[in-house]
């Protein structure tokens, strides 16, 4: 999963996925979690962010449902909730679909004119 597709000003509301991922550090956290579950300690070790910062960002991400957590022994493990990313994915996907339609048309046209030559 790749989280490069984000950081959009479109939403004026505060607690939604769009705003949560507008923050670069939060995108880094999501990217780090994309490979699998991790603890806060683990995240602090990989990212150039302090533990209170990581905890703060995780709280925001949890509030909008982008991240879920579970306790394993004394540890709390965090993971990405892919469904919450869907609105963002859809937003870009419509644009990608438009380009695909246009370029598929171009492709078809290229075949057509090359076939006639």
């Amino acid at each position, binding site marked *: 999963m790749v989280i*490069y*597709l*984000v*950081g*959009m*000003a*479109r939403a004026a509301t505060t607690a939604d996925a769009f705003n949560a991922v507008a923050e670069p550090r939060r995108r880094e956290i999501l990217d780090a979690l994309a490979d699998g579950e991790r603890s806060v300690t683990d995240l602090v070790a990989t990212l150039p962010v302090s533990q209170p910062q990581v905890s703060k960002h995780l709280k925001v991400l949890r509030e909008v449902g982008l991240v879920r957590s579970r306790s394993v022994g004394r540890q709390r493990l965090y993971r990405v909730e892919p469904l919450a990313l869907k609105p963002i994915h859809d*937003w*870009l996907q*419509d*644009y*990608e*679909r*438009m*380009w*695909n*339609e*246009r*370029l*598929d*048309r*171009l*492709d*078809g*046209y*290229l*075949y*057509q*004119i*090359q*076939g*006639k030559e």
Partner: protein
Amino acid sequence: MTMPIDRSGSAVVTLPSHTEILITRKFDAPAELLFEVWTTPEHIRNWWGWERDEMTVCEFDLRVGGKWRFAAGHAEYGEFAFSGECLEIDPPNRLVSTETFEPFPDSKAVNTLTLEEEDGVTTMTVHVQHETKEARDAHIGSGMESGLQHSLDRIDEILATERETV
């Protein structure tokens, strides 16, 4: 006769930064032909635009400083016009031009088309550089809101034409 590779739907859009858009796709055609089809009005009319809506304006003056303007009427949304100017021309590999979605004069972006041919396959990239993240996001949003949905039957038509001619 070998069947061509089905590349439909293979265009990929990525957002390298807050102000950029990058579109990538491969074509089974020489770069030279692709460049011509991208920059000649008679060809552009055959692929650019909206589902079933005729382009009402299609001008492309392929010279440094030359202007281009495309418009298409949309049954539901009225006419949409885009225009800009050619900044750098290096056929068949590179074209740098500006693009403005006319209802939003502040939306000017710089587009760089790159075509790289290898063994008869040309990789096309369109790099769109906006001035602000807001303009970039609005640009992406417009793809959705202006209803640039292309119906599946039109794609089928094109595929059918391909099968006949290839």
